[in-house]
């Protein structure tokens, strides 16, 4: 483990040549402090520093509009800067499409996908729906009667509801989706039985599932989580992870990009990063460089088409 890190550092130093590669790394976090992107950025930097991969790290939080404000600044102000990183993820992909943002992720340089948080579908403990099949049946019979509570309209939770509808043979525009701001509001509405079902990241609901106030019906991951069966295993062919990753500035050279990929890869191999994943319940889904770019193109397409089918966008 340690030798691998050292090897990576050595390779990095070699690649960087005489100019000490990254003395001062700048990370733009397109969200306010405290959320998932902020944690991703700061923990990644801490992992880099723990292995002495970088000198100082300067953070810039610029939140708002699903990260598109931060993205716009990054595109405009960091052009060609080989020491700048931007945190982003699937929420940003959706936000760009929904807000008709003038900037998008094809204008920055994809470095690596880092983590994924899978979604869970729950019902209140008092709900008559015992399994995903029950819920889907009720949904097929009368889509309007099944209200789905989750995060912002067009966000990850809404997208998953749309994908489930599609897989169940219901028009995604027929989903009765009730958007809530922030986790607390949605949790209270679900536990209080004010909505039929709820969708959110597994971490957000885990405690309430454990305490028995919510009943978990399915997860959107490829494998079961905490004994909760996957959607796929229950006949709904849907998989969705709220991924997060890092991007570099537009207009950097291929060598500069490869250098950053190496740096980020080395950081993800540190014990500090692994401990972070463990603590926050994030699944590592490392994918770098061109592979990440291909994934990104594909995900952008998928997200755009499902958002369009939700019937919320003009």
């Amino acid at each position, binding site marked *: 483990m340690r030798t691998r890190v050292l090897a990576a550092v050595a390779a990095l130093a070699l690649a960087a040549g005489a100019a000490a590669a990254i003395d001062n790394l700048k990370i733009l976090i397109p969200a306010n402090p405290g959320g998932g992107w902020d944690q991703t950025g700061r923990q990644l930097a801490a992992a880099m520093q723990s292995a002495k991969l970088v000198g100082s790290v300067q953070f810039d939080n610029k939140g708002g509009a699903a990260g598109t404000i931060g993205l716009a600044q990054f595109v405009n102000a960091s052009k060609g800067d080989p020491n700048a990183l931007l945190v982003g993820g699937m929420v940003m992909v959706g936000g760009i499409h929904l807000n008709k943002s003038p900037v998008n992720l094809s204008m920055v340089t994809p470095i690596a996908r880092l983590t994924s948080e899978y979604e869970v579908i729950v019902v209140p403990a008092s709900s008559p729906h015992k399994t995903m099949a029950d819920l889907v049946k009720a949904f097929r019979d009368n889509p*309007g009667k099944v209200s789905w509570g989750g995060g912002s309209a067009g966000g990850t939770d809404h997208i998953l509801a749309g994908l489930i509808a599609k897989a169940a043979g219901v028009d995604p525009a027929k989903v009765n989706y009730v958007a809530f701001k922030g986790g607390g509001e949605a949790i209270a509405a679900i536990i209080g039985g004010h909505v039929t079902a709820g969708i959110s990241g597994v971490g957000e609901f885990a405690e309430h599932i454990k305490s028995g106030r919510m009943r978990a019906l399915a997860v959107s991951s490829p494998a079961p989580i905490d004994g909760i069966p996957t959607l796929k295993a229950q006949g709904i062919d849907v998989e969705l992870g709220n991924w997060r990753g890092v991007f570099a500035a537009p207009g950097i050279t291929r060598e500069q990009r490869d250098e950053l990929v190496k740096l980020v890869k080395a950081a993800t191999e540190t014990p500090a990063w692994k401990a972070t994943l463990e603590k926050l319940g994030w699944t590592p889904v490392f994918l770098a460089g061109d592979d990440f770019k291909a994934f990104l193109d594909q995900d952008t397409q998928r997200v755009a088409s499902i958002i369009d089918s939700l019937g919320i966008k003009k």
Partner: protein
Amino acid sequence: MRSRRSRQETAFAFAVVALGVGLAIGTALLPSEGGYSGIGPSFMPAMVSAGTIIVGAWLAFEALTGGWRNRSPEDPAARGEHAFLPAAFAWVSAGLLAQMALIGLAGFVLSSALLFACVARGFGSRRALRDAAIGLALALVVYFFFTRALSVNLPAGRLFGG
């Protein structure tokens, strides 16, 4: 001949009506499908624009029938104030606009010091250098509190490579 105040009140009232009409135009461009609730994104704007037009009309009615009710005295002296001083207003505005324009280029510290000096000037201070120095000291303290204690970024200024 109607008074100056009455003309101002009428103008304000029509500005409020115009705002309401502007809202109505914006509302017309919004989709109104509301899904299951039957209430779309244009419902609330429609209500607000109607309300705004109504209160604007009310203000216009008051202005044209003896002026708005229960106003403070028109004579500044009776309010314990002096006549409108355009220069003072302009200095404060200039400070705010200068900070807006310069914060990226000159950084938070310098642009805030300039704002400080301009506002003080607007309030009649003649000691521009002293004011700028105080503003600079205040801005520096804030800058270091933010960037060091809270690690929240404030612009250092592109002039200085920030």
